[in-house]
């Protein structure tokens, strides 16, 4: 017997090929089993979420409005109409304001509160009070603040008490005040979550470098600026992205609190999209607005993964 045949005979006796065949068979068998286990989740996600997204993209290239034009190809006509729509432009500007404000205020406030409450005894009660608005529905919070901002509501009465004369500002009825007022409510609702997430991040920071710096005579500001803040960066990054997305897609608060504002349609992109599709029946045009919103969200998410990878490399 030559060498190769001998090896083959030996391998047959051990059953290597059989093991490999079995492994391949099990692999195929387990794919079937795996599909059985994944089927409900896959059917739900693909059928109810992902297929509609594709359908939405297709719709945005059609002429569908009210009862006509379903399935008629329109090219980029819906997208070309966007820049000349005054409501869209206003909604775009307002959404940009929302994104900026929903990053700056909740994070500045949340970081301040997290640093403040971190080592304060008995802070648990305060933390709970500040966090509770976050578990309430934006709809309910919007109803509450609607009456805080009402012409004869809490805020005007309070300002009247402080200034000594009658204050009669229609916070939710004026172009100049409606967006800042609703943003203030948003900050009131979300700062608690930011605080809790940052507290979790702070708790994960090792104590040694801070103590070492303290012994070396670093001031509290220096410790915060050069040790705490860099180590908190991953958490801050995540909170920033969450805030950007929340501010960019805000809808419920605007819907409830802006209900009596004459320019409600232009309050933000999500509201504009709802009006175009469900109130005007411009289905294809509304789909195009939804695609724009989706593109921005995808870009932000992509940006996050890139940054996250960089931060991970830096902190490792």
């Amino acid at each position: 017997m030559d060498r190769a045949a001998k090896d083959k005979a030996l391998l047959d006796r051990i059953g290597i090929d059989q093991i490999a065949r079995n492994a391949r068979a099990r692999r195929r068998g387990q794919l079937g089993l795996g599909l059985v286990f994944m089927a409900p989740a896959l059917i739900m996600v693909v059928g109810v979420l992902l297929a509609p997204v594709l359908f939405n993209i297709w719709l945005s290239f059609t002429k569908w409005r009210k009862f006509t034009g379903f399935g008629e190809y329109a090219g980029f006509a819906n997208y070309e109409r966007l820049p000349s729509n005054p409501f869209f432009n206003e909604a775009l500007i307002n959404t940009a304001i929302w994104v900026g404000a929903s990053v700056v205020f909740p994070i500045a406030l949340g970081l301040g509160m997290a640093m403040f409450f971190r080592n304060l005894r008995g802070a648990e009660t305060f933390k709970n009070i500040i966090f509770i608005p976050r578990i309430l529905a934006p709809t309910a919070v919007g109803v509450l603040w609607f009456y805080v901002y009402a012409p004869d509501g809490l805020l005007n009465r309070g300002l009247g008490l402080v200034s000594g004369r009658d204050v009669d500002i229609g916070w939710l009825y004026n172009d100049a005040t409606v967006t800042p007022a609703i943003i203030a409510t948003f900050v009131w609702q979300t700062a608690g979550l930011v605080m809790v997430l940052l507290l979790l991040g702070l708790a994960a920071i090792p104590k040694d470098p801070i103590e070492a710096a303290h012994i070396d005579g670093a001031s509290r500001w220096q410790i915060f600026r050069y040790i705490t803040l860099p180590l908190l960066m991953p958490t801050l990054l995540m909170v920033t992205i969450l805030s950007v997305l929340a501010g960019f897609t805000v809808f419920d608060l605007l819907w409830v609190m802006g209900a009596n504002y004459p320019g409600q349609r232009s309050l933000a992109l999500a509201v504009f999209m709802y009006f175009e599709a469900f109130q005007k029946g411009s289905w294809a045009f509304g789909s195009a607005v939804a695609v724009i919103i989706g593109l921005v969200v995808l870009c932000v998410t992509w940006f996050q993964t890139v940054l996250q990878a960089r931060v991970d490399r830096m902190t490792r």
Partner: protein
Amino acid sequence: MAFDISTLDLDAIERREAAKNKGSALKLVAAIGFALLWIVPFYFLAISIFKSSNEYSRNPPLALPEGLAPFWDNVARAWELGSMGQAMMNSAFYGTVGASLAVFFAAMAAFAITRLDIPFRNGWFMLIFAGTVFPFQMYLIPLFFGYQKLGLLNSHMGMLLFYTAICVPFPTLVLRNFMSGLSREMDEAARMDGANEFTVFFRIILPNTIGPMTAVFLLQFTWIWNDMLFSTVLGNRLETRSIMNALLVFQGSYSSIGPNIVLTAALLASLPSIVLFFLLRRHFMQGLQVQQS
């Protein structure tokens, strides 16, 4: 060397202690002042529900109510005007059944992804997780249209279907992360003893995943309970609308229905979330922690 207590500057230590105490007292005052920004709106809510409409418009917003009696009248009127009983039943149904199904489906998928020998395990996961990437606005028009075609619009089944689907991807992420950290020794041993994968899943993996499953269930239940947008678009009928959608009934008629009644309705609608939060605070925070990672 003997320690001489007379060399210690006890006064300085006392001064320092006093300064420290003063500092923390100041801090406490600052904390209370700050917390007032959060307490005052809640206080306003808490007293408004005890006022009659007449009393609400007559007295300052922060004045204590004259009596507690109007509360039951407010509840009765809010309940009736908003048909809140029906809406609460609907939301409780969508929330419990939808979130339970979603978490169970997610656990099954996570089991396949972490425990079974399947090709492209990461690809399957990404496909499911892609359900969290897109903004809700991209679902609205196609779902409205599709539901209309399939006769699911304004039906309990249609609402349940959507709420279940939207709650699948995030729990899949959480449970996949958790299950991949579970020791493999137990299920390997069970397989040696001839257990099939279903037995392993139901008898070994699921019982060990109850904690994270509860946490994500609570998060998803709260999400469904708090949803207003999809109920407005897909189930805007008295029989099918959610509790937050029911709150919008008051929105169109702010002037005719007293604020005291609308605020009572808002509180009633929020009560389950608040109760759940205080009963299960630990699980909630756990949920947040997994949300972060």
